[in-house]
C-alpha cells in the first residue's frame, strides 16, 4: 500500500536525562540510497539502531514496508546491518560468515552455498572462502560484512559508518562500488556517516541531523544549494553566513568574485573589504576578506591559467566582493 521502505514517526530516545533522538519523522522510499549525516552525538546511529531493532524508542513508532515493527525484536525484522567494526564472527571462515543468516533461517545447504557464492562474487571476494576474518585485510573484512548482509536479500540494508576504518583511497573506491552494488541489487540502503563528502557522493537523499533532530532532508544538490539552516550550510561544504536586512544568508565561497574596489558596478550584490589572508592550495586559492561591515568572508577562486587576477591580490589589498543575487540563500529558521 505504501511506497515507503521505512517510516519513522515522531521517534524519541533518551539515555538517562540525555535526549538523543528528539521527535524524528522520516520517510525512506523503496530502492533509495538514503544517508543520515551528522556529527557524533547527533543521534544518527541511535536512529539506525532503532530501525535495526537494537534499541527501543521511548516514544513514536517505526514502520517497515508499511508494517509497525516498533515492538518487534531485531531477529524478526527484514533488515540487515553492516557494522562499523564489521562484527564478523572470528570463529567462522568467510563462507560460514556469509551463510550465517541463511543457516539460522534454515535455508537448505545447496541453496546456501549458491547464494553465498553469488554474494561473494558481487563483492569480489572469490577465492577467500576458507579464510578466517583475522587473515583478511580491513577492506576485505568490509566486503565480507557487506556480503553477509546482502546475501539475505533484506528489504533494507543499514550501514553504520562502514567505511570509517578504511584509508582515504580505499574509501573512495568503496563509495563508487557501494553505490554500484546498491543499484544492482535494488535494496534500500540507509547509510550513516559523519563524512559529508561521502554522503554527497553516494546518496539519493541526505538527512542532516544535529542534536537529535533533522535539520534538513533533500538531494545532495538541494542541501548544498539551499541549506535550510546555518548548521547545514556549515556542515555541508563551507559557507559564509551573512546577516543582512534582518535575514540570515548563506554564501558559498566559490560563488563569490573579487574585483578591484574601483571597478565599475555589474549589477550584482557587492560589498567592499580588505584582503586579510591568501592561502594557495594548488587547485585553488583561498582568500579571507574582512568586509567594511565587520564580517569575514571566505572566497575561493580556482587557479585557472587565464585568471590573472588571482595572482594579483595580496594581503592588505582593498577589494570588492560580488555575487549573483541567486547565489545568496536565505535560511529558514535563522536562529540568532
Amino acid at each position, binding site marked *: 500500500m505504501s511506497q515507503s521502505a521505512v517510516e519513522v514517526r515522531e521517534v524519541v530516545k533518551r539515555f538517562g536525562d540525555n535526549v538523543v533522538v528528539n521527535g524524528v519523522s522520516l520517510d525512506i522510499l523503496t530502492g533509495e540510497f538514503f544517508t543520515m549525516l551528522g556529527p557524533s552525538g547527533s543521534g544518527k546511529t541511535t536512529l539506525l539502531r532503532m530501525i535495526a531493532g*537494537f534499541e527501543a524508542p521511548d516514544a513514536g513508532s517505526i514502520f517497515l514496508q508499511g508494517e509497525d515493527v516498533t515492538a518487534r525484536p531485531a*531477529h524478526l525484522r527484514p533488515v540487515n*546491518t553492516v*557494522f562499523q567494526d564489521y*562484527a564478523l564472527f572470528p570463529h567462522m571462515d568467510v563462507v560460514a560468515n556469509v551463510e550465517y*543468516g541463511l543457516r539460522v533461517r534454515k535455508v537448505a545447504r545447496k541453496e546456501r552455498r549458491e547464494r553465498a557464492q553469488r554474494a561473494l562474487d558481487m563483492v569480489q571476494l572469490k577465492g577467500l572462502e576458507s579464510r578466517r576474518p*583475522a587473515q583478511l585485510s580491513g577492506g*576485505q573484512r568490509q566486503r565480507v560484512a557487506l556480503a553477509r548482509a546482502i546475501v539475505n536479500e533484506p528489504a533494507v540494508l543499514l550501514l553504520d559508518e562502514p567505511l570509517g576504518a578504511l584509508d582515504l583511497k580505499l574509501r573512495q573506491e568503496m563509495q563508487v562500488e557501494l553505490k554500484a552494488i546498491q543499484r544492482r541489487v535494488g535494496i534500500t540502503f540507509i547509510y550513516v556517516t559523519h563524512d559529508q563528502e561521502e554522503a554527497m557522493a553516494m546518496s539519493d537523499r541526505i538527512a542532516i541531523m544535529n542534536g537529535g533532530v533533522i535539520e534538513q532532508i533533500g538531494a545532495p544538490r538541494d542541501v548544498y544549494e539551499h541549506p535550510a539552516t546555518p548548521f547545514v550550510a556549515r556542515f555541508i561544504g563551507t559557507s559564509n553566513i551573512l546577516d543582512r536586512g534582518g535575514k540570515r544568508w548563506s554564501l558559498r565561497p566559490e560563488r563569490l568574485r573579487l574585483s578591484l574596489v574601483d571597478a565599475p558596478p555589474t549589477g550584482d550584490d557587492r560589498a567592499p573589504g580588505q584582503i586579510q589572508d591568501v592561502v594557495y592550495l594548488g587547485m585553488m586559492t583561498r582568500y579571507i576578506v574582512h568586509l567594511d561591515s565587520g564580517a569575514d568572508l571566505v572566497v575561493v577562486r580556482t587557479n585557472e591559467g587565464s585568471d590573472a587576477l588571482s595572482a594579483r591580490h595580496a594581503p592588505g589589498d582593498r577589494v570588492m566582493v560580488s555575487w549573483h543575487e541567486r547565489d545568496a540563500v536565505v535560511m529558514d529558521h535563522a536562529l540568532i
Partner: protein
Amino acid sequence: MKRRLLARGGLWLWVWAVLAFLFGPIITIVIFSFDRSNIETLPIRSWTLSWYQVAWHDEQVRQAFVLSIKAACAATVLALLLGSLAAFGVHRARFFGRDTVSLLLVLPIALPGIITGVALNSTFQWAGISLSIWTIIIGHTTFCIVVVYNNVVARLRRTSATLFEASADLGASTSQTFRFVTLPLIATALVSGGLLAFALSFDEVIVTTFTAGAQNTLPIWIFGAIRLGQQLPEVNVVVTAVVVLMLIPIIIAARLTGRDTFSASSTRAPTN
C-alpha cells in the same frame, strides 16, 4: 661471537636451574616410588614395582581416589553451570549493585580455606545436614565457581558486543545466537576454567577436612598417610599416578588453547 655463545649457554643453564627447581621434587617422588626400601635414601639399592601393586590393591586408596574424582567432577559441572550463568548475568545486565555482586562472586577464592571450611561446617550442622560427598561437593563448588566465572567474564569482556547484535540482526533467535556464537566464543574459556576447577577440587585439603564425613578424599588420605609415616612408598606411588593422570587434561588444554594461538599467529594479512 664468543660472548654471545657464553650468554646463550648461561641462559640455558638458568632455564634448566628453574626447571629443576620446579620439577625436582616431583621427579624425586617418582624415582622413590620404584624404591624397594621404605626409607628414602640414595643411592637406591633395589628397584621394584611392588609398591604399585600394594597401592592398587589398597581399598582405602581406591575409595579415596573414586571419591576425589566424583567430587571433582560434580563440583566442576556445578561450577561450569553456575559460574558461566553468573558471568552472563553480570556481563549482560545493568542493575544496581552489579559491581558488588561481581566482587562477592570472586571473594570465596580470596577467603582463607579455613574460614570457608569452618563456615560451611557450622552451617551444615545448624541446618542438620550430615556430612557426605554432597557436602564436599558444595564446599568445592564455592571456590570452583570463581575460576569459571573469572574465565568466562574475562572472555565476554574481550568479545565485542556487536557480535551478538550481528547474530540477532542476521535472524538468529536468542538460543541460536547462544549455540552458534556465544558458546563457540567462550568454549576455550569454559575448558580452561573447568580444568582449573577440577584441579583445584582434586587437590583441596582444608575445606574438605571440614566438609567430609567419615570418607577420605585422595589428598586427605595422602595427608594422613604422611603424618603417620608408615606408608611413604605408597604415597609416592599415589602421587606419581596422580601426576600422570593430571597430564592428560593438561595436554588437552594445551592442545585446545594451542590451536587458538596458532590461528591467531598464522595471520597473514594480505593487502588488496
